[in-house]
């Protein structure tokens, strides 16, 4: 049986976590009026924090992501200031959505970190993939807190309405 090593410490600092929170909640915003948990409520930020702290023995791409995330968040921070005159962590949902829409299509001008140009669609794809994984993966990975999204989605049991 494959056993996932325990991972207690995270990888991201508080500012980075706040940045990821804005991005993930724009990627999977949920809908409170219809009782759909968003990425944060699903534990997706905790998921990526722990995933990035793991090593290549868990999955070979993790070291690559450890390098990518700080750079991508720095580049998105710079774009946020440029486009909205505020920090990434302070963006409204609409502003974050606008930023990600540009990232998806590679429309951000001079998207770079420390002089290194970053591949915008790749960054978008990575963030989106991790956001969905954080919402829907098995809880052992640190997301999908208390099987929140499985209960809402109706995976392995009937669907439940979760938000008040």
């Amino acid at each position, binding site marked *: *049986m494959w056993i996932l090593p325990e991972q207690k410490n995270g990888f991201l600092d508080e500012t980075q976590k706040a940045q990821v929170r804005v991005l993930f909640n*724009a*990627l*999977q915003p949920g*809908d409170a009026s219809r009782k759909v948990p968003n990425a944060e409520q699903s534990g997706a930020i905790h998921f990526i924090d722990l995933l990035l702290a793991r090593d290549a023995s868990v999955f070979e791409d993790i070291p690559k992501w450890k390098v990518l995330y700080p750079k991508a968040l720095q580049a998105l921070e710079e774009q946020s200031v440029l486009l909205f005159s505020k920090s990434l962590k302070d963006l409204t949902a609409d502003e974050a*959505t606008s930023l990600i829409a540009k990232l998806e299509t590679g429309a951000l001008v001079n998207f770079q970190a420390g002089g290194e140009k970053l591949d915008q669609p790749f960054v978008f794809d990575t963030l989106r993939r991790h956001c969905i994984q954080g919402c*829907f993966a098995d809880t052992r990975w640190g997301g999908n807190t208390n099987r929140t999204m499985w209960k809402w989605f109706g995976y392995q049991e009937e669907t439940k309405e979760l938000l008040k």
Partner: protein
Amino acid sequence: MKKYDAIIVGSGAGGATAARVLTQKGFTVAVLEKGDWKKADDFLPYDELHYAEHKFLTPNEKKDPMIWVNSKNEEKPVHQWWLANMVGGATNLWEANLPRYTEEDFSIRKFMRDIPTDTSMVDWPWTYDEFQPYFERAEWEWGVSGAANQSAAQEKTRNGYEYPMSPIKPHASNQFIQDAFRKYGMNPYQSPRGINSKTFNGRPACPYCGYCQGFGCAVNDRATSANTVLYTALETGLCDVLTGYNATRLIHEKGKIKGVAYKTEPTGAEQEMTAPLVFVSVQAIHSARLFLNSQIPDPNKMIGHYFTYHTKGAIEFVFRNMPVWGNYRPDSVFQPRTGLGSLQLRDLYMINDKNTYLSKGGKFSIYDPYTISPPIKAVSRCGYHPKKAKNVWGKDLVERMIELRSYGGASFSFTGETMSMYDNRVEVDAIKKDDWGVPLPKVFYKHHQYDIDLSKYALDKVEQIMTDAGGELRLKEPQGLENPGYGHNHGSLRAGTDEGASVLDKDCQSWTVKGLYVLDSAWMPTAGASNPTLTQIANVYRVCEKLNK
């Protein structure tokens, strides 16, 4: 070193079936397998992130890729998700969809009109009737559940024939889908599957856990070569499965096979094992790679050429007029909400429509995008709007997630005929090698306009019928020019009766190296239009039953 009558390279569908037949006939065989044995325990816990998203059971994307050359002649490394280096090969990870190829596949020139002149669509040198008894043996020895005579479009079986087991539980959407198509004179039917619907041959019935394609079956209800024919071969005492043996080269001399060169460590020395018979079955790309790396004489420049992937297409709908299919009641006659898709639509196998030049078509496997997939796959691959079908996110994603959990859905996966062309081919890279020092395969592939038109035509037909039934389109992905790789691969070592136009003879033996046989789908002269493995297995019975010690 122990001497064997035959060496079999690869322990998947072809290799293991060969071991079964040859040991039954008294041959001693060594089965060389690059990977190792897997137990049910190796497939647990069912964790979608680990096994599917992180691709734990398939070849390493960076160390062991193939090279794809696209239509712009750009080279890209590709993850070979359709391979599994372990005893049983890719049959450990398949969905075990096991239809037969039929007369329309064997004798294509009889059925296909207006064959494009820049293609090579040849008749197979065998008939469906010749294959019929071997199909039956394959279905019984591998344990296929299904039912004959459900639909006029279904594969024809011998009068009175029945599959070893009845089909697996129907999906709760079946009746709705069948009714919708019957209005148009079509009749989807339950597919033959290498999945037990009851205890069979010592293996249990499927509990419908939902972890099928891409996952190992820890319950052991899904047939693999390891739990069926290879198991039987081992019981004879005449078969050794040598794990960790990576065949690097075929040894031949003066037109005869001498044996196989192999390594047991990536950096280790090449060693040799000799035998008068060698059977290769490592999937069509890698069999061609092995031939090329072994300098098998190729006077007509045929090795690797006429390689085919099936023409594909995907289309997905939501039915806002229907509630989500099924429930979790333990006594339900339907699959629970995490089961398999179960219907096949074969009424477009031949196209009789005066409005199109298309004639040979294909078939659809029908699924529900919600209930048949683990959740990450269901959500990350869903479509929302035909113009924004991929990478759905934001409010669109939430709307689609709500749809998925609220309404019935249907997704259709097309497997269609493919035009065989000389320039679609497998080569080996002159520089790039895998970890074992073996040159990587390089695949050049472009789909013919026929393939592209066929996929669009078939998807349009389904769209018309499903829209009429109240469906709203959510994703539509017809085949394009490019194909970076696919699990159904064939034709790279064509078999035929003309030595000048084929690599293998009618019995899948090399024309230029006697005693060397190929038993994966590389021998298929054309692609056909169904999942190929049952036909590949049937051919192993046909070839190996003729051999005598």
